[in-house]
């Protein structure tokens, strides 16, 4: 990035106007979030009265934490995202390697069949997948939530692109050394694709941390519910309209991801960018 202003970047008044516009929009954008923070960190009587003298409190978070088994929900979500990511990494790596470096009959047809999932995501096929999970006896299990997402077309596509950009010479050199195809994959392709793996991992973790509708359908017990569904069950039942506690619970359930994002902003944004440029 050069220090001089871009030719078409506004100067003087134009620049001031642009900055003002951007800041107004930015303020509008964070307003709902700031309001949620305000409510969560103040007692109910100040939840809607914006006063500078209002005392801060963590009581809402304590109440929310004890009102529902959030610890268990967090554990479930953690298990879910770890399991899904681990399976995705193995399955998509193998499949992407096959598509990138092996010639076999039906390769193009199979690749097209993979790409179908980019449009028809498991999120849409809830009725049939519920039937399948019932038949497999996986209803109300964490495996049942994750299984439909484990073979990820998006991951296969992304890694295939990356693997294709690996110079053939490296591949051939490793083979001359006597490596088997799997060893070549492990020693040449996987290390070179590390940025792609990081990008994919961040996108996958945020997707499955945030996923809601399918987990809502397939789970009905505390032992399997991820935190998104737990939050919904908590806010929908018997809390009435105690907004301080509901917003506290809402912030609580997003806190790990939000904190991780604030700490590793650059990696997050770059990962989402990288994952989107295909």
């Amino acid at each position, binding site marked *: 990035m050069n220090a001089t202003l871009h*030719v078409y970047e506004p100067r003087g008044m134009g620049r001031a106007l642009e900055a003002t516009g951007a800041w107004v929009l930015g303020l509008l954008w964070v307003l709902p979030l700031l309001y949620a923070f305000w409510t969560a960190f103040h007692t109910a009587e100040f939840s809607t009265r914006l006063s500078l003298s209002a005392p801060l409190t963590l009581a809402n978070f304590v109440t929310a934490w004890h009102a529902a088994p959030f610890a268990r929900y967090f554990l479930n979500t953690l298990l879910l995202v770890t399991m899904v990511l681990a399976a995705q990494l193995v399955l998509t790596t193998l499949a992407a390697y096959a598509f990138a470096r092996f010639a076999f009959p039906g390769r193009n047809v199979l690749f097209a*069949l993979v790409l179908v999932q980019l449009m028809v995501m498991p999120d*849409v096929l809830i009725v049939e997948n519920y039937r399948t999970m019932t038949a497999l006896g996986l209803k109300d299990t964490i495996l049942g939530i994750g299984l439909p997402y484990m073979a990820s077309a998006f991951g296969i596509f992304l890694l295939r692109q990356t693997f294709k950009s690996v110079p053939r010479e490296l591949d051939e050199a490793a083979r001359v050394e006597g490596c088997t195809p799997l060893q070549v994959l492990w020693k040449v392709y996987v290390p070179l694709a590390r940025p792609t793996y990081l990008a994919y991992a961040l996108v996958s973790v945020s997707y499955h941390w945030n996923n809601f509708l399918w987990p809502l359908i397939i789970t009905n017990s505390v032992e399997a519910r991820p935190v998104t569904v737990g939050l919904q069950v908590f806010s929908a039942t018997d809390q009435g309209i105690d907004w301080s506690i509901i917003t506290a619970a809402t912030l609580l359930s997003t806190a790990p*991801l939000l904190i991780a994002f604030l700490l590793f902003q650059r990696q997050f944004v770059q990962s989402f960018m990288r994952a989107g440029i295909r």
Partner: protein
Amino acid sequence: MYGWLLLLPAMALLALFTHYPAIANLWHSFLSTPKGDRPAVFVGLENYQQLVEDPIFWQAFSNNFWYALGTIPASIALALLMAVWVNDRIPGRGILRLAFFTPTILPMIAVANIWLFFYTPEYGLLEQFTGAFGLPSHNWLGSKSTALAALMVVTIWKEAGFFMIFYLAALQSMSPHLADAAAMEGASRGYFFRRVTLPLLMPTTLFVLVNAVINAFRLVDHIVVMTRGGPDNATELLLFYIYEIGFRFWDSAYAAALTMVLLAILGVVALAQFFLLERKVHYQ
């Protein structure tokens, strides 16, 4: 042979949870819903007939159409505006990028809770604002005329920042020589933006557009929290209706027929994307 072996695990899972359900869904849409000891029987097009005669389906269909039309252009335009702004060296652009992007990281379900409170009659921040200007109280999510629009705002809020980063990436990869050359020829800022920047951003726009369309039909988490399709079906969207029919009324046959409509829409999107890509939307 080796290629096949490497593919096998991923293909098996894809077949089980994407291809099989899509086909099984078609088959099940021609059967009746099994009830008690009565097994499913072939009923031909009966479920589709029910669908054509179901006013709630048509309402969900048109709602979803307006929802897509209301959210997609707005979030793309805002995303572009945000990207252009935070690409220029304005003060505090790092914080602004963060402000625009943060909603993307939050789960839709949490976003819905936050906005539900924001919209709450009398207590919500929105009401406090309008109240301060002496405007009468209005139940944004509770009245038929504003509920869907209120949900659109939430969707735009969540998605614009996500699309922004793709535009930002594209803007940053553009060569500064283009601008230099255009300036030398005396092109105005607006002219340069319309005739050079926008065409070069076309591939990004197409990518973002496809994502936005899919999301408009795929993401209904906020409906579950905020309106449950109400009031009076004003915020019923297709996938939420499928969820209701399939898992609240347990009418799996009718839900299968509804799912076919959704699959058909996604198929059209896929075809459109394919042909748009074929027609080469950019000049590189």
